């Protein structure tokens, strides 16, 4: 990452500083930003949570977290820089004494570290404490310099609750102060989707229904719910992944070129895509729930056997859908999307399947192996782009085989790539919201989710309907086979 300008001085305040997200992602990301000298000249980190502990204990725990989770090697000088202004305040959100303690600590930080009253608040807290924490920050708003608020997912449970959250936030803050995070948008490949489409003359002219047969978007996880039944049971795959990551990837794939790359322009185009989407009929959506099986060689239990999950749970751990974007560019071009847990392989990909060449003169020679061109955008595990093209096998004759031109970022796997959270925290420090989700987008996403979930109440399910480690339910294969197409196998 290279910076055109350095972020202004500010205090970074993490609500939920003893939580998993802070330990695994946020502090390691801040360390990597410090490692590259990308943090403001004057900054301080204030951790806020429930647990009673001293600042010294908090700093020691965060040091351990950096050693364990940061992508960069541990350097004492970088750590000293990061931890110099690191403090911890114990509070119960909504409690006035606690609120005062946070305010006092921030004033001290301003005085000691020159953070000028500016604040980046990161709300890494459970949804039920959201109102209290937003209100607490809002009430202090007028005493502070600029304020930016990063809000984690889940952003609501349905359209009504998302609108209520938006109302709450707007009561205290302007839309340009609110940064709703979807960490997928911080990934290099996802941003590269924009570069790929709009900076390369070769793709944009063919990026439409005339040349593209269909698009497949896959967000597959090998993991189960990892002890998070409390969160997952009421959410399911549609709220955990479909509403946010999947629809974001779809919007980026389908959007029209924005006038420029400012937050407003990019987000306006994405909203247009979401607004043009039909509600899929019941036959175009498949739900699934994993049974027992084998993943990475080891036996794993069914969803209903996971700790904290009801033995007759109807929560879906898999969703597949055929979606349409009803505009000039995409009319009649299906977007097949699927997301699920405990699948055979972890992969997030966008596959653009181009139409077969009209009269392939090499068809007979190529046999089964000549497939239509596919542009594969890999978001994880190894970020990159590959293009499958038909090429002549060297030697005599005109044998054509599918060849993959494969491009991995950074010369290695994840070790060299910035973590999504680094990019997003830095953007927020700079006040750039292009990679965050706007109010309109969130509401459009929930409208679609509500319309799908509404149909489920009438439906009967037969869960579990796929084995852990398999590619998903059979009904998902049937969904795409009906159109004489098939899911990419890997």
């Amino acid at each position, binding site marked *: 990452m290279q910076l055109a300008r350095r972020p202004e001085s500010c205090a970074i305040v993490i609500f939920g500083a003893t939580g998993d997200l802070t330990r695994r992602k946020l502090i390691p990301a801040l360390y990597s930003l410090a490692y590259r000298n990308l943090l403001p000249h004057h900054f301080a980190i204030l951790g806020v949570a429930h647990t009673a502990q001293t600042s010294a204990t908090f700093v020691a725990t965060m040091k351990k977290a950096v050693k364990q989770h940061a992508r960069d090697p541990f350097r004492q000088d970088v750590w000293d820089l990061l931890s110099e202004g690191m403090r911890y305040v114990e509070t119960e959100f909504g409690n006035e004494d606690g609120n005062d303690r946070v305010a006092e600590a921030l004033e001290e930080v301003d005085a000691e570290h020159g953070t000028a009253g500016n604040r980046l608040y990161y709300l890494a807290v459970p949804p039920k404490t959201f109102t209290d924490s937003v209100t607490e920050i809002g009430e202090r708003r007028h005493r502070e310099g600029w304020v930016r608020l990063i809000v984690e997912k889940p952003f609501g449970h349905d359209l009504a609750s998302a609108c209520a959250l938006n109302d709450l936030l707007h009561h205290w803050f302007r839309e340009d102060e609110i940064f709703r995070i979807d960490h997928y948008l911080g990934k290099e490949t996802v941003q590269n989707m924009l570069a790929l489409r709009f900076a390369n003359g070769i793709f944009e002219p063919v990026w439409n229904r005339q040349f593209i047969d269909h698009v497949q978007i896959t967000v597959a996880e*090998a993991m189960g719910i990892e002890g998070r039944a409390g969160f997952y049971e009421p959410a399911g795959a549609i709220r955990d992944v479909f509403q946010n990551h999947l629809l974001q990837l779809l919007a980026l794939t389908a959007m029209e070129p924005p006038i420029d790359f400012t937050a407003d322009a990019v987000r306006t185009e994405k909203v247009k895509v979401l607004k043009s989407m039909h509600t899929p009929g019941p036959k175009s959506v498949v739900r699934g729930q994993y049974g027992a099986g084998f993943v*990475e060689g080891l036996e794993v239990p069914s969803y209903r056997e996971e700790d904290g999950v009801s033995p007759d749970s109807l929560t879906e751990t898999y969703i597949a859908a055929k979606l349409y974007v009803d505009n000039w560019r995409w009319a009649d071009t299906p977007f097949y999307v699927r997301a699920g847990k405990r699948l055979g392989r972890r992969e997030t990909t966008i596959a653009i399947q181009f139409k077969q060449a009209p009269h392939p003169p090499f068809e007979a020679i190529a*046999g089964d192996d000549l497939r239509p061109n596919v542009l594969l955008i890999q978001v994880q595990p190894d970020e990159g782009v590959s293009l499958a093209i038909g090429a002549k096998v060297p030697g005599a004759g005109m044998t054509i085989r599918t060849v993959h031109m*494969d491009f991995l970022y950074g010369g290695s796997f994840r070790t060299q790539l910035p973590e999504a959270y680094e990019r997003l925290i830095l953007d927020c420090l700079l006040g750039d919201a292009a990679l965050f989700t706007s109010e309109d987008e969130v509401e459009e996403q929930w409208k679609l989710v509500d319309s799908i979930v509404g149909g489920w109440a009438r439906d009967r399910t037969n869960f579990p309907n796929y084995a852990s*480690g398999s590619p998903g339910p059979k009904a998902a294969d049937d969904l795409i086979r009906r159109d004489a197409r098939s899911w990419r196998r890997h």
Partner: protein
Amino acid sequence: MGLVSDIERQLGALRAAEAADGRPEIRTSTMTHLVWCPPGWHTDARKTLAGLAERHPARTIILLPESGPRAEIVAHAELKVFRLPGLAHEVVSEVIEIRLRGDAAHHPGSVVAPLLVSGLPVFCRWRGELAAGGGELDEILGVADRLVVDSSEWSRVPAAYAALVPLFERSAISDIAFARTLPWRRRLAALWPQIGSVERLRVEGPRADAELLAGWLRSRLKREVSLTRRQAAAVESVRVDGQQVESPGALPGSSDLLSDELDRPGRDPVYEAAVRATGTVADAACHPG
């Protein structure tokens, strides 16, 4: 779930060391190449892979099933770098060896599925007996586009061919033993039209090669041809109705044979017909039940 991240970490470190110039890397894989390698086959498999050199840049995953009291999976990754004259970039292949102990050995599909290179075909060289495969074979067929066996590694030939036939509908299958007979098949084909009326075939060579040659001849001529055989390490002599067929000379080595099989895309109807016409399969077809 540490296996995949462990392998990614190992490969990441190796690649970082390799890409010292910091340029983005163009990966050169053309397939995922699985090798199912039960105890006793490791040395042979490694030798054959070494002989393939840079011909099939791939992610090669060698699966080493072992018995053991509890499920355990241990992986080791390495990079094979080939610098070729006249090529600006080197060709880099990844080799991942995975030891599957205990129960883990029965679920190879779930181990390799997360490691397959996106969008590329999957070939599996299945070493040793096929019949012993059971559920493991079933899982491998679930991920592989093509299964490459060598029926001369099987103890119950020709009976074992019967188990192969149902698999033709699930995956493309080829057989190194059949590929090895190609020079002899060419010689026999050159005897057309006289060979059209042949009734007896005599082969000095391995059982599998002889059975497949006979099956091939029957299926091509659509008539019964009897087979007699004398054991030899490779096919040394072939006679039709008592007449010696001219020898095609030196036969290709195991790496070259595998290399050819890795170049083939779809099903091989000639091989499938030959297998169907080997003694036992043909008998079973004639006397069902």
